[in-house]
């Protein structure tokens, strides 16, 4: 009888410590998971930064046994265009070949994909995208003519820095050079008309 009281007391005394231990563990776990994209030094942005200066299209080396990020599709040619909107809005223009697969994805600084599309999004074979911050969009819209709709697609980037990834499918192994040429035909750079 006396013994039961003693074990009960011990459990009662230990319980808050165990609860505290688990709560601290949970908080540490959540904090470290959320912090990882900001702390990890070798993320996709770092990989792209090592390869390319901002505001130009740079081909990524072809995926082989040694080169390339894990799980890249070897049938794709890839190119990157880094952006830094603190220098002004980014203009992306491309003339696309009919029925040749082109993929476009917009990556924020810490890995988030905030927009993606394929060549099917082009109107009459042309793609015209303006990547802006919220403030830049206001400035651009203030300069829009009142009586016509904007001809370009305007996308707000969640972070001022990041990169666009272009991927072109080589349908046959011998077409890799053509796929790379399609990527290099993309114009990506600071918007010249911007008044920001």
């Amino acid at each position, binding site marked *: 009888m006396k013994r039961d009281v003693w074990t009960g007391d011990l459990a009662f005394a230990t319980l808050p*410590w165990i609860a*505290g*231990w*688990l*709560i*601290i*563990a*949970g*908080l*540490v*776990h*959540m*904090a*470290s*998971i*959320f912090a*990882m*994209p900001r*702390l*990890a030094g*070798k*993320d*996709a942005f*770092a*990989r792209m930064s090592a390869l390319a200066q901002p505001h130009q299209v740079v081909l990524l080396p072809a*995926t*082989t*046994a040694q080169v*390339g*990020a*894990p*799980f*890249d*599709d*070897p*049938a794709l040619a890839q190119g990157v265009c880094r952006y830094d909107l603190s220098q002004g809005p980014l203009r992306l223009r491309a003339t696309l070949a009919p029925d040749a*697969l082109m*993929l*476009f*994805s*917009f*990556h924020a600084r*810490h*890995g*988030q*994909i*905030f*927009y*993606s*599309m*394929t060549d*099917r999004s082009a109107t009459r074979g042309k793609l015209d995208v303006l990547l802006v911050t919220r403030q830049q969009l206001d400035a651009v819209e203030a300069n829009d003519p009142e009586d016509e709709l904007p001809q370009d697609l305007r996308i707000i980037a969640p972070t001022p820095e990041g990169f666009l*990834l272009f*991927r072109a*499918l*080589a*349908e*046959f*192994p011998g077409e890799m050079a053509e796929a790379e040429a399609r990527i290099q035909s993309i114009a990506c750079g600071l918007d010249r008309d911007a008044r920001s």
Partner: protein
Amino acid sequence: MLHLLKILLTAVAGLWLGLEATYYAVERGADQGFGTGLIFGAVHAGPWSGWPKTGTREADPYARALFARTSETPLGVTEGLSFIAREDSSGAALTSACDYVVAKAIPAARFWTLSAMGPDGKLFPTTSQRHGFTSSELLRSADGGFEIRVSALARPGNWLEVNESQPFVLMLRLYDTALSANAFAVTASAMPSIVRERCR
């Protein structure tokens, strides 16, 4: 004094357990590749698994943490969907000691590719210099069906070579697919089957 020691001990133990859990979730995934560390938002269809949410704004924190470690760039959801198979249709792990036939159904997509790579997502050297097939280059039967033979030894038809000395996984990518809008509705019968044939 004893109280302070207990608090300190609890804090240290909490720190350890929390970081251990993070290590387990992310680093193990970074070592073993696509999907291992991804806990949420999986789609399973037969032997295939995909994580369609990783290519959207709604990517969960675990996926973001994992990709920050591996520098992977997953497909944006409008670009297409990726699926990985580590097992055959019967549920047995893929091994380069056996031959497999990947065939039958494929979800509607403008283009698709099937490639073989190591479980860590790295390509391995092959004598055929081939790591995958695109939907355009496949030899097809009269009814439009296809059969891809996965083997370490040369095979007639669509031969996807794997390396005898290395484990492998299969990646299926559907580009420009209507499935993107509704990835969670995909069923096993809509996906290619992976059937084991002879083993050595």
